[in-house]
């Protein structure tokens, strides 16, 4: 059940009405109802995986309780390790088994043995990468004493399974979401209107922008041999706006739906293509994942290697981005994409000024003189997208080779994708963040009409497969 599907159009109003007008006796009934709704939502893809979600929930809930209540560091450590081992084991089995089989077969064949390729018929449970990260962060926060484990299984279950964030995030933290679930939610007109605005702008970014760019990008990346270099560059830039419109649109819808249920989710995107450096980009793009990796991967690694000073920092950053790439998908091109970002940090780490953070904490206001830095950063990000978007690593290199070798101007340049959609997405974000004359009912009616006009081809969200 996609957010932009007819089924969801029936599902959500029903959930909204029942949440505020039937199950409104207290937080327990509100939470229980939302759990039932969330499991129903999840079961619409494949009901069997609801049991996996339930198992993961109970495992992390119980591990958190034991860790929090124990005074023995060894007991805490053992339960933390057990929980993470099982969580990652499940994730690896479903997401990476075929990748490892394929890699081993390649390795065996390359050293002279003969092994026929084969794959196991494994279906990847939707959202597994996201809810696994919810559970891991909860257990680690308990282990390091940052939070006290909740004794309320209903609240914890909703923290993991809350349907707006279940399948593609944002990756919430217990410190932010659990307190909201532990009190009765009261309907707020202002919050609901803000939620509706977010849903509309999210739908606009997804349906009008991302889905319109999708066939252009698909054609350019699939048939790259038939296009010249300039068109390939436009294809990459178009993908930059497609993936942004798709994923930030999804996040806006998720945040809007949550607001309508009285729950605030964290901001996941903050004008990423206006970043002046790569660390700034990662503090503006998929913020919930970047900060998760920063806290639970980079920091422990950097602490481990801290006495190697800048070299230790580089190793920690490089491994973190490799993991980030691998998290996005079981493919060498995703690992290459992660490694590419790890390498991009070298100048920041070893420069005289030095790097401040894997995700920069401070952000000065933008100035006109920042334009060259913004263009450079965006170009580097686009180069990374070649690896991200390609179906396999060799395709990325062939694509880049063709891009460089044939840079003649074409008659068939897709100006629409190059000019109109980036401007539309900028407009959508500016209006969303700053109220102005465009934030009015006639404009929203126009947006609804545009969404309806473009909604004939219903397509999946890119980040669902992660």
């Amino acid at each position, binding site marked *: 059940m996609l957010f932009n599907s007819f089924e969801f159009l029936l599902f959500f109003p029903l959930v909204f009405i029942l949440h505020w007008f039937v199950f409104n006796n207290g937080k327990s009934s509100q939470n229980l109802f939302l759990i039932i709704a969330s499991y129903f939502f999840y079961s619409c893809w494949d009901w069997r995986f609801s049991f996996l979600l339930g198992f993961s929930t109970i495992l992390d809930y119980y591990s958190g309780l034991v860790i929090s209540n124990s005074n023995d560091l060894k007991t805490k450590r053992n339960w933390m390790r057990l929980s993470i081992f099982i969580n990652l084991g499940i994730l690896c089995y479903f997401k990476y088994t075929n990748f490892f089989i394929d890699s081993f077969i390649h390795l065996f064949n390359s050293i002279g043995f003969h092994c026929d390729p084969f794959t196991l018929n494994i279906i990847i449970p939707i959202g597994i990468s996201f809810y696994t990260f919810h559970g891991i962060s909860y257990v680690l926060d308990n282990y390091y004493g940052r939070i006290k484990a909740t004794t309320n299984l209903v609240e914890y279950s909703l923290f993991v399974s809350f349907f707006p964030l279940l399948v593609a995030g944002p990756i919430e933290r217990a410190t932010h979401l659990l307190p909201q679930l532990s009190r009765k939610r009261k309907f707020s007109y202002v919050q609901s209107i803000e939620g509706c605005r977010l849903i509309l702008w999210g739908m606009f970014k997804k349906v009008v922008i991302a889905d319109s760019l999708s066939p252009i990008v698909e054609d350019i990346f699939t048939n790259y041999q038939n296009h010249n270099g300039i068109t390939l560059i436009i294809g990459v830039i178009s993908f930059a706006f497609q993936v942004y419109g798709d994923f930030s649109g999804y996040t806006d819808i998720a945040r809007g739906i949550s607001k309508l249920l009285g729950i605030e989710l964290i901001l996941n995107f903050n004008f990423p293509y206006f970043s002046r450096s790569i660390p700034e980009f990662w503090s503006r793009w998929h913020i919930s994942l970047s900060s998760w990796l920063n806290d639970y991967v980079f920091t422990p690694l950097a602490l481990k290697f801290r006495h190697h000073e800048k070299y230790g*920092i580089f190793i920690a950053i490089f491994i973190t981005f490799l993991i980030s790439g691998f998290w996005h998908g079981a493919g060498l091109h995703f690992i290459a994409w992660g490694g590419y970002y790890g390498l991009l940090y070298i100048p920041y780490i070893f420069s005289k000024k030095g790097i401040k953070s894997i995700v920069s904490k401070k952000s000065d206001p933008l100035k006109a003189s920042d334009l060259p830095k913004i263009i450079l950063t965006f170009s580097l990000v686009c180069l990374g997208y070649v690896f991200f978007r390609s179906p396999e690593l060799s395709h990325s290199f062939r694509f880049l080779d063709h891009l460089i070798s044939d840079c003649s101007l074409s008659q068939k340049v897709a100006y629409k994708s190059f000019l109109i959609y980036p401007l539309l997405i900028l407009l959508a974000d500016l209006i969303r963040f700053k109220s102005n004359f465009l934030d009015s009912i006639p404009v929203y009616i126009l947006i609804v009409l545009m969404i309806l006009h473009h909604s004939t081809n219903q397509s999946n969200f890119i980040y669902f497969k992660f």
Partner: protein
Amino acid sequence: MTHTTQDLLPIFRYVFENDEIEISETTVAADIPEWDSLNHIYLVVAIEKHFKVKFTTHQIQSWQCVGDIITHLNL
């Protein structure tokens, strides 16, 4: 010997390159703009060198405010 925030203050100012920083036991990372994840690592290294101590990863990860650092320094 019992350490206090005054013993830590010069290290904070040196690592964060800001001589105007003031700290108390309740100071948290959010109170100091320069206190981000990477500077946190440099801060740990500087404290360990200065006081000739070695913290465990579990200790460092459990720090939530300056008071927690002092508690572990005084163990």
